Structure formats: structure tokens, C-alpha cells
């Protein structure tokens, strides 16, 4: 037993008093500079040292299950657009979405299924493997070798069904090496069977790092979610949602959230729980890779892949966040929750309940981000004061700094 002190100075016992920061002395415990990392100059260095060189998640392989299925992922920070296509051979390939004639953007957006991609400008045509297969009025060109002018490849690899791209023409490590021990731990989590997806997207007027740091700590939960999750993630034993497990990999992170086993469900929540998954369904049948602490009072793990991707795993479902920088104070986000496809109407109902609850909780989270951006932009505070539960923020900012300062 340890002691926690509430906002009124009252001391209480807690089982969750471990100081995780002590396991990572290199992070220190000092206030962390942040305002200086929201500038255009810092943003440009993040582009050059992180987003142009890291493995970035762009989606799931089920999105392009059939030959010719494709989608476009714009990576605004690098002024890049990537076309992802499932080839005849079953392989998923990524290409710069740029025509090799006069460099027009080839596919103007979205997703679909095509055997060939024809440029709108002058009709140059590429097949699903990126080969240039058609040039209108080819006779008019001088020594044009079609075989030399296919689409420019983008390094593309798949881990556990998640598609990643790397804009570096010569990535210095494979995706598997990049994910390392983090990836090994989640190698057997059953992502594959969970293909019903509810997704949301939009723009947040805040720096991308502020978006990441709104979702990798539990300290905010009692204050940001008092009505949507009053006691789901906290109890007398763990008043402030201290983590039940933390692991910092060289770049990536995991944070296990506590679930209160005595949390009182609302009337409809209890009905929904009879029919399908709920967020805090505990470790029963806990999937491989999840709940690494083996704590019976486990809710979910936030698994953060550097720089901008979350895979949050719960018992019967999981959800992901992608945060794409647009400008020093603008970020495009996508949130996706994944379930096993429902076989019955009652299962479908339970998914809808979970989708609505998660959405409203996230609306509470996202609202805080722009207020933080505004506060930091005022220039009054240059540093964050971080507590032990906020260790992932400390680590994320440090990892960004190591890249920007060319220490990796």
C-alpha cells in the first residue's frame, strides 16, 4: 500500500503508488520545455528528422482486400501523397501519387477498386503494380522508355494487418526492426478478426504533439470525464487513474489503464454489456499481448507507436488514433474502433452503444487540446510540470527531441 493525496489534501491508501519514472532515470523529473517546440522552425525539423524517415501507419490491410483495391493517404507535413494498392500478386504496394509525365497528382483522393490508374491530365495509364502501361500519342515523344517510368515506389510494409509507409527512399531499418520489442509483444493480439470499423476524422487547431499527449495519460480522467466515465477507470483504491503498468520502449510506449471492478453501470450500459463488449470487461479471456501486468482490474492498454499512432487494445475490441501534422498549430486526426463483425442485431446494438460512448468521451478529450494550444500560444508558460502518470508525455517529447537534435 502507498499513499495518494486528493485535491483537498486528504491522504488515502492506494495500490497504485509505483513511481514509474524511477525506472527511467534518463528522463529525469524536471519540468519539460514545450512552448519552444511549437514553432514553425521546430515543425520543419520534425518533418525532416521524423515524418520523412519513420514508419507511419496509414491503415489496415482489410481496407484493400481485393486486387486493385486502393486508397490515397496524404501526408501533408511532407507535402506527400501516397497511393496504396493491392496488386494482382496479393502484395500491397505504396507509390508516390504523382504521374511520371508532368507530375500531376495521379489519383485525386479517396479509395476504390481499379485495374489501372489513368492520369486526368494527358491520360498516362499505370497498372496496379505501378508500371506505365499506356501513353496516348506515344509516337510524339523522344526516346520514352515506359519500363523506366513507372510510379515512384514508397517503402511499404505490413505488420499484423497494419499498413505502414516510410517516405525515406532507403529506410534505415525494416518495419519489424522499427517496432521491435513493442511489436513482438503484440504479435498475437487478434487484430485480424476485428474488421467492423467505426471511424471519425477531422481537424484540431493544435500541434500534433498536444494531440498525442491528450491520450497517453490517465491523470485527466476524473476532471475531463466526470459524467461520461465517473468511476469506470478509478476507485478509492486508485483515485487518480494511476497506470497499472507502464513500459517505455526506445521509441514506443505502453500504458495500461485501471478498471474499477465495482463501477456502477448505467441502465442502458448494463443492457448493452449483456450483448457485446464493453470497455472494462476485465482480463477474462484477455487476448495475448494485452494486459501485460496481468492485473485483474485492467481496462485497456494504450500502445503508442512513435511518432503519431495509437493502438489501444481492450478485451473484445480495439481502437486506433492517427495524428497527422498539417501546420505547427493544425492536426488532422482519424479515430477508428474495431469489433468482431456482429452476427446478431443485439451484438450490433452493443457495438453502437460502445461507439457512441467512446465518441462522446473523445469529444471531451479533444476539446481540451485546443485550450492547451491556446494557453501555450499565449507564451505565459514555457514548460510542462509533469507528474509520474504523465511519464509517456515526458518520454514522447524526449524522443521527438532526440530526433530533432539528430541524436538517433
Amino acid at each position, binding site marked *: 500500500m502507498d499513499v495518494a493525496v486528493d485535491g483537498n489534501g486528504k491522504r488515502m491508501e492506494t495500490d497504485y503508488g509505483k513511481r514509474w519514472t524511477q525506472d527511467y532515470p534518463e528522463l529525469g523529473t524536471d519540468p519539460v520545455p514545450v512552448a519552444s517546440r511549437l514553432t514553425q522552425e521546430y515543425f520543419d525539423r520534425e518533418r525532416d528528422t521524423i515524418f520523412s524517415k519513420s514508419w507511419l501507419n496509414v*491503415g*489496415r490491410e*482489410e*481496407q484493400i482486400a481485393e486486387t486493385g483495391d486502393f*486508397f490515397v493517404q496524404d501526408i501533408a507535413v511532407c507535402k506527400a501523397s501516397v497511393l496504396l494498392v493491392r496488386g494482382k500478386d496479393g502484395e500491397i504496394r505504396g507509390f508516390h501519387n504523382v504521374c511520371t509525365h508532368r507530375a500531376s497528382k495521379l489519383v485525386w483522393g479517396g*479509395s476504390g477498386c481499379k485495374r489501372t490508374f489513368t492520369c486526368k491530365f494527358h491520360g498516362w495509364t499505370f497498372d496496379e503494380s505501378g508500371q506505365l502501361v499506356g501513353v496516348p500519342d506515344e509516337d510524339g515523344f523522344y526516346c520514352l522508355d515506359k519500363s523506366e517510368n513507372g510510379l515512384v515506389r514508397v517503402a511499404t510494409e505490413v505488420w499484423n494487418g497494419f499498413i505502414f509507409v516510410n517516405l525515406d527512399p532507403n529506410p534505415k531499418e525494416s518495419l519489424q526492426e522499427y517496432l521491435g520489442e513493442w511489436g513482438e509483444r503484440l504479435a498475437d493480439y487478434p487484430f485480424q478478426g476485428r*474488421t*467492423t*470499423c*467505426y*471511424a*471519425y*476524422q*477531422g*481537424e484540431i487547431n493544435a500541434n500534433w504533439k498536444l494531440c498525442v499527449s491528450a491520450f497517453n495519460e490517465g491523470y485527466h480522467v476524473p476532471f475531463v470525464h466526470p*459524467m*461520461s466515465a465517473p468511476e469506470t477507470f478509478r476507485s478509492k483504491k486508485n483515485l487518480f487513474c494511476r497506470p497499472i503498468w507502464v513500459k517505455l520502449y526506445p521509441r514506443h510506449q505502453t500504458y495500461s489503464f485501471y478498471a474499477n471492478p465495482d463501477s456502477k453501470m*448505467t*441502465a*442502458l*450500459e448494463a*443492457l*448493452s454489456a449483456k*450483448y457485446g463488449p464493453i470497455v472494462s470487461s476485465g482480463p477474462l479471456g484477455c487476448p495475448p499481448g494485452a494486459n501485460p501486468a496481468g492485473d485483474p482490474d485492467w481496462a485497456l492498454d494504450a500502445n503508442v507507436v512513435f511518432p503519431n499512432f495509437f493502438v489501444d487494445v481492450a478485451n473484445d475490441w480495439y481502437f486506433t488514433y492517427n495524428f497527422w501534422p498539417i501546420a505547427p498549430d493544425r492536426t488532422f486526426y*482519424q479515430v*477508428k474502433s474495431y469489433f468482431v463483425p*456482429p*452476427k*446478431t*442485431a*443485439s*451484438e*450490433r*446494438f452493443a457495438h*453502437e*452503444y460502445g*461507439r*457512441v*460512448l467512446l*465518441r*462522446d468521451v*473523445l*469529444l*471531451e478529450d*479533444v*476539446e481540451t487540446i485546443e485550450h492547451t494550444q491556446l494557453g501555450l500560444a499565449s507564451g505565459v508558460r514555457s514548460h510542462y510540470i509533469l507528474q509520474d502518470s504523465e511519464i509517456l508525455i515526458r518520454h514522447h517529447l524526449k524522443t521527438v527531441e532526440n530526433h530533432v537534435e539528430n541524436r538517433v
Partner: protein
Amino acid sequence: MTGQKLPKSFSELAPFVAQGWALATERERVAKRCSSTMEELTEFYDAVLPKVDEIMTYLDALPLNDLPEDAQRLLDLTFSLAEASMSVERYQQPGVVDGFDPERFLPFSPFGQVP
């Protein structure tokens, strides 16, 4: 769906279909929730909540991916109940308290599914 019919055994919920609670998409359901008063949300919630088990028993006997129109309408009604429950059970107001603008949090379908 423009019809108003519900499966016979649930005809007492017909007034809520008439009031526009049977909606096919999440956006329509959010708009309905946010434009309703707490009185309307509570009346709808109080009427449908005690029927949920009965509704699910009825619907689970039918093929989910090929529901008759009246059964789909009934399921859509329970999706609106999920929305209304957030207002009635949690927020004590129609929308999220101190929440981000739902108009800036937009559903999309990377897998081409789920309204």
C-alpha cells in the same frame, strides 16, 4: 426509409417513429439528439429502455444483414436510444458537457460500411 411501420408487437413505440427517432445514420441521430429537449429525450428513453430485451429477442431471430424494413426501423430506434441515454443517464443535457463540436468530429467509412 420513409415508412413508419414497426413490427406488430412493438406498435406502442409508433409515436416515437412519428416523432422522427428511427434514423438510418449516426449523423441524423446526433442531430436529433442535439436538437431535442431534455423532456423529449427523457420521454423517448423512458419508453424504449424497458423494451430493449424484448426488442433484441425479436430481432435476434431475424438475419441481421437482411432485416425486413420494419425490423430495421426498430433497430434504428435502439441506436437513437444509445444517443438519448448519453443525455439522460450521463450529461443531464442533450449534448456532451464541455465537448468538442460534433460537426468537427465526422464519421467516415474506411471499410465502406456501417452508417
